[in-house]
């Protein structure tokens, strides 16, 4: 017995494929990760992405120039450096590349709404393979035919990333299997198989074009089956006995004899409700009632998905096509229709100049522009509401939302400590929407005595006229806001020097340039009436300035 291949049996007549009219585009991006990588590199010189793979630093993805220079994927980095000493490299980011592929899939929805991931995600080397499948049945004529559609895609890919371009091989066939194989193994970059001729196109391809696993490809090679035709010649029962069921399924899928469905990318759920009106609405009460029903619908959608809205956008379209847009940020994600409505009522009633409905509002659209998952609060058992404080955070969130929607996000604030010796910079006010729990990474300066700081600090230091007993001493009397104060007691000075690193860090805060360039001597002052102040002399005599000015900075109770 020689090791000749199994005796060829009489060829089975291929069942004539059913003309389903289905047309599939397979796109294959051989250099996807390298070409879409954000790292700057020279596109006409070898470039490779590096990652740890099989216990070594290997090339994960190459650009076209690297392939021409003799590099190949899964090559180790030292080998690549030996071959091409000046190869440009960057670290690979597989998640990022996959995310970009998904983005590309959404972009391709301009050609067809039905776009799927590749079924084979990895090459024989175990590296990620990037490809997409588009079901363009009934879409091609919109772009002037199948060839024009592929040429259009190729032209757009060529201008990708300011002309860096993106290599893509494309094929159109009647089945997923055939299109997949042709995109990777056809002689040309752009293959179109006429309808019903999938089998003829696939048969001359190598067996790897059938989406076989590496062991099966090995087996085919050992058996001397170098084309799909050689494989297809055998009765299916024999193939199943020798290879298992999978290659037979793949073969039949490629030949269009077995069905295969596309697993499409589904866009993330969009929380949008819209109401078009037969007649324009001008009354704010009617509008509120309408928004009420929209809020209920949106809340139902959100609850069904377990999501809570973090930002709501409402768009009111007037009959003259002007769109009034309102945005509402929420402190805590909410799916409560009554809460949303209350915020909108508040906002609508506070519109500058009232609501200008023109000749009427014809359409209202409500979108939850930003959502996050919320867990449903547990219902209470047995305890009465008075005994137990339910979800204080949620209650506060509701209050913040109402305050913010009426007063504005910049008005409702919490103090956040900041590591600085300059008094006005030791604390910052942050909107409650950002500072949820008031906790901050930075803590207050522990060296500062709370009692030596004024309870109230003026928004900006105010210049005052001061007469001091000696130039370096405390004020004797001063005039602030046109009132003369006679000083009875003065504590100080507390000397606060500018932070030497201030200019280095590059802070662009308001007031840093003017007030932080000089040393300040702070005094706590009490006048004859018993009023207490915090004031400072800006700058040291002789060393920093000849004529230092005085400023009022705060008041003590």
């Amino acid at each position, binding site marked *: 017995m020689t090791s000749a291949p199994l005796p060829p049996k009489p060829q089975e007549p291929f069942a004539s494929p059913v003309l389903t009219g289905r047309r599939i585009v397979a796109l294959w991006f051989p250099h996807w990760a390298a070409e879409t990588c954000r790292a700057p590199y020279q596109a006409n010189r070898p470039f490779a992405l590096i990652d740890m793979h099989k216990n070594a630093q290997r090339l994960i993805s190459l650009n076209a120039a690297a392939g021409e220079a003799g590099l190949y994927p899964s090559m180790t980095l030292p080998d690549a450096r030996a071959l091409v000493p000046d190869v440009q490299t960057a670290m690979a980011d597989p998640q990022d590349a996959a995310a970009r592929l998904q983005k590309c899939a959404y972009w391709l929805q301009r050609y067809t709404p039905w776009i799927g991931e590749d079924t084979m995600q990895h090459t024989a080397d175990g590296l990620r393979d990037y490809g997409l499948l588009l079901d363009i049945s009934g879409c091609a004529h919109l772009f002037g035919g199948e060839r024009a559609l592929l040429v259009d895609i190729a032209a757009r890919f060529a201008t990708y990333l300011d002309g860096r371009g993106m290599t893509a091989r494309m094929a159109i066939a009647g089945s997923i299997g055939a299109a997949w194989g042709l995109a990777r193994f056809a002689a040309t970059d752009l293959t179109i198989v006429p309808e019903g001729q999938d089998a003829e196109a696939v048969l001359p391809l190598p067996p790897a074009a059938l989406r076989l696993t590496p062991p099966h490809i090995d087996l085919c090679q050992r058996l001397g089956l170098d084309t799909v035709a050689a494989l297809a010649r055998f009765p299916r029962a024999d193939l199943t006995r020798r290879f298992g069921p999978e290659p037979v399924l793949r073969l039949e899928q490629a030949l269009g004899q077995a069905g295969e469905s596309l697993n499409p990318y589904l866009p993330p759920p969009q929380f949008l409700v819209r109401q078009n009106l037969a007649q324009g609405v001008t009354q704010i009460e009617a509008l509120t009632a309408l928004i009420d029903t929209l809020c209920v619908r949106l809340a139902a959608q959100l609850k069904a998905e377990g999501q809570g809205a973090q930002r709501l956008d409402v768009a009111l379209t007037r009959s003259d096509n002007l769109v009034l847009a309102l945005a509402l940020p929420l402190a805590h994600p909410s799916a409560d229709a009554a809460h949303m409505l209350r915020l909108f009522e508040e906002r609508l009633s506070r519109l500058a100049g009232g609501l200008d409905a023109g000749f009427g509002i014809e359409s209202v659209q409500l979108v939850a522009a930003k959502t996050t998952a919320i867990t449903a609060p547990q219902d209470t058992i047995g305890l009465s509401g008075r005994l137990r404080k339910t979800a204080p955070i949620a209650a506060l969130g509701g209050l913040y939302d109402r305050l913010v929607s009426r007063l504005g996000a910049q*008005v409702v604030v919490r103090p956040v400590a900041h590591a600085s010796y300059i008094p006005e910079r030791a*604390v910052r006010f942050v909107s409650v929407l950002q500072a949820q729990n008031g906790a901050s990474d930075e803590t207050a300066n522990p060296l500062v005595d*709370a009692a030596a700081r004024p*309870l*109230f600090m003026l928004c900006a230091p105010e210049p005052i006229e001061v007469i001091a007993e000696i130039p370096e001493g405390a004020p004797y009397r001063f005039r602030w806001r046109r009132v003369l104060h006679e000083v009875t007691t003065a504590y100080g000075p507390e000397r606060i020097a500018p932070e030497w690193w201030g200019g280095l860090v590059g802070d662009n805060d308001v007031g840093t340039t003017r007030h932080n360039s000089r040393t300040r001597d702070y005094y706590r002052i009490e006048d004859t009436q018993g009023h207490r102040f915090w004031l400072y002399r800006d700058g040291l005599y002789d060393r920093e300035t000849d004529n230092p000015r005085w400023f009022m900075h*705060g008041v003590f109770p």
Partner: protein
Amino acid sequence: MQRALNKSRQTKSPKRQHQLKRLHRLVAKHEPIVQRGASITTGFAEIDAYFDAHVTGGVPCGGLHEVAAESAADMPAVLGFAHRLAARFMAQGADDDVLLYGQTHAACRDGGQPYAPALTAHGVSPHSLVYLDGVTVPDLLWAGEQALTCPSVACSLLTSSEAAPDFTHSRRLSLAARTAERPILLALGKTAASAATTRWRLAALPHNGWQVTLEKLRLSHDTPPPLDGWALYPSTPQNAETRHVMPLMRRAV
């Protein structure tokens, strides 16, 4: 038996009843008024002694409390005292409760913003502060009323240096606060007729002191609070310091 009957007949006679009523009033005048809701002590011994003698508990939590300035320059003292009261009210609530502190535009401009590092010296944790940085007077009162609906706001302190709410608004806030059994503090530069539960008037005194007058106490109609008030020297660390740190200068005036 006969004796008891006689006694009941005696009490029912009009003259006896009148006499009893008069005695009741006399006793009530000298006994502290009993209040039901939660209340706080102010932490100032003189004021607490007054409340002990006249009202059980102390300053009631549920209600509108006004702290008014003697003159515009006394607003810092007003706010200092209001913060002391707010800290006492905060202590009644949970740890993570917040203090809603609102100011009108004019109050921001004249008095500045609360300075968080100094709050601890007055008993308020900076982490509990939610600050409204400049709003109109109607918005300020609206925010106070909204705060009453939220159980996590232990106290709200509203500052208006330019105008006081009129009687209608004051009564509305006062009723809401009493129903919710939570306090609202109003720090005012000017006063008007009000339905507040208490009204304090403050002036600064030399040597870190406050002249505090309790102008109005809604619970006590019979015994008005002392009109001349109390001279208080709040025990801040600042005062403690004056004992061992000599001031740079002290002039006899």
